[in-house]
Structure formats: structure tokens, C-alpha cells
């Protein structure tokens, strides 16, 4: 009986969360649709959320590209297919690693920051103050963050793609003696413009997830400083789970299970 009660409670909470998140998303997109945008604040958020995440995205992408190349290049050479390493690294980077890795890193850094900032504003009554001034928190706070991530996450993914491929190329040359020309030729033969744009489309969706989940977690903060901690952790966990789920769904839709 207790297990059933718990199941019922969890189900209700899940639907309440999903409903609240969807409502916030709808309200925010409604303001964007009506062009009710605070431009200066959006530019500031682009800097805070995007530019300040660049270094960590570059570092994680560089080393991931290097590891991928390290593990695949020597074996590929042994099997006589060293000329495919560049394509493999680029294919993985552009379709998956670039968008996914930058999204996960940004979810950890930025999703948490958004939830903490908005959560602190809830417990210091700043959100109520905005409402009492006749200002919708969705327009005032969520719209700039959402737009900033929609713009900046794809840009970060491009940097991640490039750095990951460059790192992979350097390792392939150093450890498996695959020269740069051969590596780059393989890259050019394997990936096309479509692969890049589809990867960037994924980044846009991931950006929406991070901004909305971070904002929603922050705005539903209850119970003082401890509540801010809960909101922050929740923002990271929920964002990352949703990024992985949506990545599978998007890959299925965009690539249709094909390999090419």
C-alpha cells in the first residue's frame, strides 16, 4: 500500500514538474514571439553564460578529441585503415561530441548558476518584488537567458568541434604517424555541411533545455539557503538527463538510424 502511495506521489510530482516546465517554456517563448526582449541584458547573458564557458568547453573538447584519436589511431593503422581516422574523429565530434559535450559542460556550469541566481532571488523576495512591479519573471529573467543559450551554445559547439578535431589530428600524427594531409582529407570526405547543421540544431535544443530547467528550478526554490542548494543540484541533474534523452531522440529523427 505504501509503495502504491509513493508511486502515486512520484507520478503526480513528475506531471506537476513537466507541466510547470512546459508552462514556463510557453510563457517565455510567447514573450520572445512578441519581441518583448531586453536586448542589453541578453547581450550581457551571452557574455556571462557563453563567453565565460568557452575555456572549459575548449579544454574538455580538446582532451576528448585527443583521447578518441589516441585509442583509435594506432589500431586503425594496424588494420591498415589509418586513412579513416580523421573521418572517424570528425564524424564523432561534429555529430555527437561537440554538441553533447559542450551541452553537458554548460549544464554543469551555467544551469547551476542560473538556478542559484534565480533561487537566491526567490528567497530574498526579489522575484515577488518583480511581480509586484508588474513585471513577469519569465520576460525579465528567463527570456534573456534562453536567448543567450540558443545563440551561444551552437557557437560553443562549433569551437568544440574544431578543437576536438585539431586535438585528434595532433595525436594521430604524433602517436600513429598519420600526417595532417591524410587526416584532413579523411575529414573532408566523411563529414558534410548537413552533419554540422544537424549538430548545431541539437545544440539549440540543448540550450533551450539548460535555460528552461535552470530557470524553472530556480523559480520554484523553497526553504532558504538549503533550498537554493537543492535547486542547483536539481538543475544540473535534470538538464543532463534531458540532454541525453533528447540527444537520442534527435539522433533518431535527424539521422533516421542511418550511418551516413
Amino acid at each position, binding site marked *: 500500500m505504501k509503495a502504491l502511495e509513493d508511486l502515486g506521489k512520484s507520478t503526480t510530482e513528475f506531471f506537476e514538474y513537466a507541466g510547470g516546465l512546459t508552462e514556463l517554456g510557453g510563457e517565455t517563448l510567447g514573450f520572445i514571439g512578441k519581441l518583448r526582449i531586453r536586448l542589453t541584458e541578453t547581450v550581457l547573458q551571452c557574455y556571462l553564460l557563453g563567453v565565460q564557458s568557452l575555456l572549459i568547453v575548449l579544454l574538455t573538447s580538446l582532451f576528448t578529441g585527443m583521447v578518441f584519436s589516441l585509442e583509435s589511431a594506432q589500431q586503425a593503422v594496424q588494420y591498415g585503415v589509418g586513412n579513416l581516422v580523421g573521418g572517424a574523429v570528425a564524424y564523432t565530434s561534429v555529430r555527437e561530441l561537440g554538441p553533447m559535450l559542450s551541452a553537458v559542460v554548460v549544464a554543469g556550469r551555467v544551469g547551476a548558476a542560473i538556478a542559484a541566481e534565480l533561487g537566491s*532571488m526567490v528567497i*530574498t*523576495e*526579489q522575484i*515577488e*518584488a*518583480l*511581480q*509586484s*512591479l*508588474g*513585471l*513577469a519573471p519569465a520576460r525579465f529573467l528567463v527570456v534573456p537567458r534562453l536567448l543567450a543559450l540558443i545563440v551561444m551554445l551552437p557557437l560553443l559547439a562549433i569551437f568544440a568541434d574544431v578543437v576536438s578535431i585539431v586535438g585528434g589530428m595532433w595525436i594521430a600524427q604524433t602517436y600513429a604517424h598519420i600526417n595532417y594531409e591524410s587526416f584532413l582529407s579523411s575529414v573532408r570526405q566523411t563529414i558534410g555541411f548537413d552533419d554540422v547543421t544537424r549538430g548545431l540544431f541539437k545544440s539549440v535544443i540543448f540550450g533551450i533545455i539548460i535555460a528552461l530547467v535552470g530557470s524553472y528550478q530556480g523559480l520554484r526554490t523553497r526553504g532558504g539557503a538549503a533550498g537554493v542548494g537543492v535547486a542547483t543540484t536539481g538543475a544540473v541533474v535534470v538538464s543532463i538527463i534531458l540532454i541525453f534523452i533528447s540527444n537520442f531522440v534527435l539522433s533518431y529523427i535527424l539521422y533516421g538510424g542511418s550511418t551516413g
Partner: protein
Amino acid sequence: MTETIAKVDNVTLRYGDKIVLEDCSLDVVKGAITCVIGLSGAGKSTILRLLNGLRKPERGHVYVKGVDICHMPERELINFRSAIGFAFQFAALLDSMTVVENVALPLREHTRMSEEEIERTAKATLDSVGLDGAYGLFPSELSGGMLKRAGFARAVVTNPDIVLYDEPTTGLDPIITNLLTDTIKHLRAKLNGTAVVISHDLHSIYMMADYLAMLYEGAIVEYGPLQDVQRSSNPIVQQFLQGSEVGPIPV
């Protein structure tokens, strides 16, 4: 002849299982300062939040300028709230903005004034609460009394019909308390408007209140002109006003 500008009408509201207000009614007289007193956690601040639609009652109605705001859609309510000033207990200034930017915010969002006019109005409002030297400071750089005054300035900058003050003098020294009390009276007179003040501070209430209401166990148990309530024979009111440990209010 007194005219009511806002009315809490038989409102019941609970937080979770706890009943905060039960069949609670309060009239806010136009052009007067109405103070609400009561024990800590009695639901006084909830009354303010009902009056600007930040909380919705479970039962009953809240009328402001004759309009029932309980069933007003959030979008309409957001516009409606710009006619009601709210000075929060801890000011709740946006900490990413300077004092003058905080005060200018409602003008920037709700009026078609030029930037120059907005800045002039915001600074004049800050001057009127004695914060002429604090334009460019951030909230974290202000003392408690300055924060409260900056909150007052933001609440009144759009010349609202009603200003709601939540514990305006709590936790401040007597000199600043007197200064803030005078500021509330001065602002009400200047705006020719209405104020509702939630407070525990009987000294400042006696200085400014035209009407006094006492909230106890979720309902208004006494309400009327200040002197009438002070002379009330209600033992709950008398125990509270005298700060006595003996009486019907359990300690």
C-alpha cells in the same frame, strides 16, 4: 464619509495544512493609513500579498478599486499591480542594479517617459526619502535604514493609488524608525494616496495610523479609527497593545 478603496472579504487561505486566514475581512479606507498588527506568523504579510494579487484566496474575495482581483488572469494582474506600490520587509531591491536603476525600473517598464525624465524622476523620488547621495550605490552597499528607504522610493515612484508597507521599521534603531515613520506619512500626503502598513512597532503605529486592525487566529478581531481601537475593551487587543503576558493570548 469614508470611502473604501480596497477590501478583503471573508477570505480563507491556507499554506499546506495550516490555515493562515479564516473568514478574514478588512476594509482599506481611501486616503488613510491603515495599520495591521498581530502576532508573528499571524498572516499579516499574507494580507498585503492578497491585496496585490501575489496570493489568491481559497475562499472569499479581494476587491481593489472595486475590481475583484481573485479571478483576474495573471497577465491582467501584472498590469494591475503597477498601480499598487509594495515596499518589502527587506526592500527586495534587485541586487544586480544600482539604487537609482532599481527606482527607475518601474518607470522604464510602464511609462513612455524619456530616459532623461526617468532619471530625473527616480532621483527626485530618492531625494524625497533622503537618499540623494546613494544614486549609484548597489543594494549591498546600503545600511538597513537606507535599504528600506530605497524600497519605499521604488514603491512610490509611479505614484500608485495604494502603497503596501511590510514591516517598514522592524529591526531598526529608534531614530531611523522615526525617520521611516515620518517618511511614510510624508509620502502618503505627497501622493494623496492610501497606505496599508504591517507592523509590530506600536510606537510608530501610534505616530502614523489613521485606522488600526488587529489580526488574531486568522481573522480581524478589532478594526476602527486608531483611538477607538486603543480604547477597545477586547482583552486580546488590550493584551497585545500593553505587551502583557497575562491575558487570552497564550505566551
